[in-house]
């Protein structure tokens, strides 16, 4: 330690050592510099923040078709739910209120029912009971839940106008402010 201390105190030796370390650091920074488009974020589909939201086409409860990729230019909240899941039931009214307040500003809510592990009549009854007016895509085969690596219900993905996931909320119920702050973020035009 005496020798280390000697190096530390001696201005010339320490300057030399520090200079070498810092020069090597700068060289490394330069060598590992990348062009601006070299991060994968936002281009590869994956169900996580910063990535392109995996696309899907599903039939909805009222019989029409919805495709996520067709909704570019709008902010999309993808919420995976089941009628038997208490936190899903708890947050749905707040989603409906947010939908009423934000749809004029370009918000779409896709409340994907995990039909493969739910019953269609129960899901329909739930939607009627809460007067939900946003589309309810039906994941009958479980393929969308699979693609979104669904591990807990509800799971919510906030997708911006360019189709990039900005926030993932696993579990619930989400508070009103959590939902609305997430929506405000995806509706901002610029990133």
């Amino acid at each position: 330690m005496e020798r280390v201390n000697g190096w530390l105190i001696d201005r010339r030796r320490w300057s030399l050592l520090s200079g070498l370390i810092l020069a090597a650091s700068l060289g490394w920074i330069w060598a590992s510099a990348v062009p601006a488009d070299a991060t994968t974020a936002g281009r590869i589909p994956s169900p996580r923040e910063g990535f392109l939201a995996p696309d899907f086409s599903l039939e909805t409860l009222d019989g029409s078709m919805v495709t996520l990729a067709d909704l570019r230019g709008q902010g999309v909240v993808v919420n995976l739910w089941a009628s038997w899941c208490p936190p899903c039931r708890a947050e749905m009214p707040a989603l409906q209120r947010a939908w009423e307040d934000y749809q004029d500003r370009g918000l779409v809510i896709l409340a994907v029912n995990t039909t493969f592990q739910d019953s269609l009549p129960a899901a329909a009854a739930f939607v009627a009971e809460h007067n939900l007016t946003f589309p309810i895509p039906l994941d009958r085969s479980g393929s969308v839940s699979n693609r979104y690596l669904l591990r807990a219900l509800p799971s919510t993905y906030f997708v911006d106008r360019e189709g990039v996931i900005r926030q993932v909320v696993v579990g619930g119920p989400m508070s009103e402010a959590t939902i609305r702050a997430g929506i405000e973020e995806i509706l901002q035009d610029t990133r």
Partner: protein
Amino acid sequence: MLPILQVGPLAIQFPGLLLLAGVWIGTSLIDREAPRYKLSGALLNNLVFLALVAGILGARLGYALRFFDVYLGNPLDLLSINPNTLDVQAGLAAAFIAALVYGARKGLPLWPALDALTPSFAVLAIAIGLAHIASGDAFGRATDLPWAIELWGERRHPTQFYETLLAAGILAAALWLRRRTPFSGFVFLTWVALSAAARLLLEAFRGDSVIILGGLRQAQLAGFLILASALLMLHLLARRATVSGPNG
């Protein structure tokens, strides 16, 4: 990559649990470290506790300020238990200020206190690496190397493992150095320098870097500035210690 641990009906967010374990193990070291530097363990524990509380409050308030109108309409949601609605920078700033104010009021000497807390910081750095392994955050760039891992649609550098291994090595170095410390602040500043160098090194393999100034990785530049400051401070403290006597 195991973001959620299923225990019966409970879905536990595993990365959060690992961070909590890191804080717990880290703080449990304080009582052992404090006497080495002739500090009160209780005082240091209070400081850390206060900083943690201030950090959480600051993080939530910082997030609420970003979405002021939303929280104005739903003020009770400030209390919601959701890690998504936290602003990390605001939290760190609040924790830092709280620790500084508390330390100053209690007359805690800065450098010995930081030295005493260094093993805790180093343990927390390992926990952060493990949390990244569990969540798949802080992921690497695409590569064909034989030890690449399949993650987020590509074969990538296992940066989370690099990070954890380096953090473990740095903890070992910090524990070794603290038995031979020549002056106050040496252990902490060496840990800062090593951690900054590690970040600077590993950021090159990351696939999620923030890019600035036409192609440079922001975290590397931050690491460079921190490394340079730590090297300079080491020199200044060493000189001050010789001027004021061998134990100064």
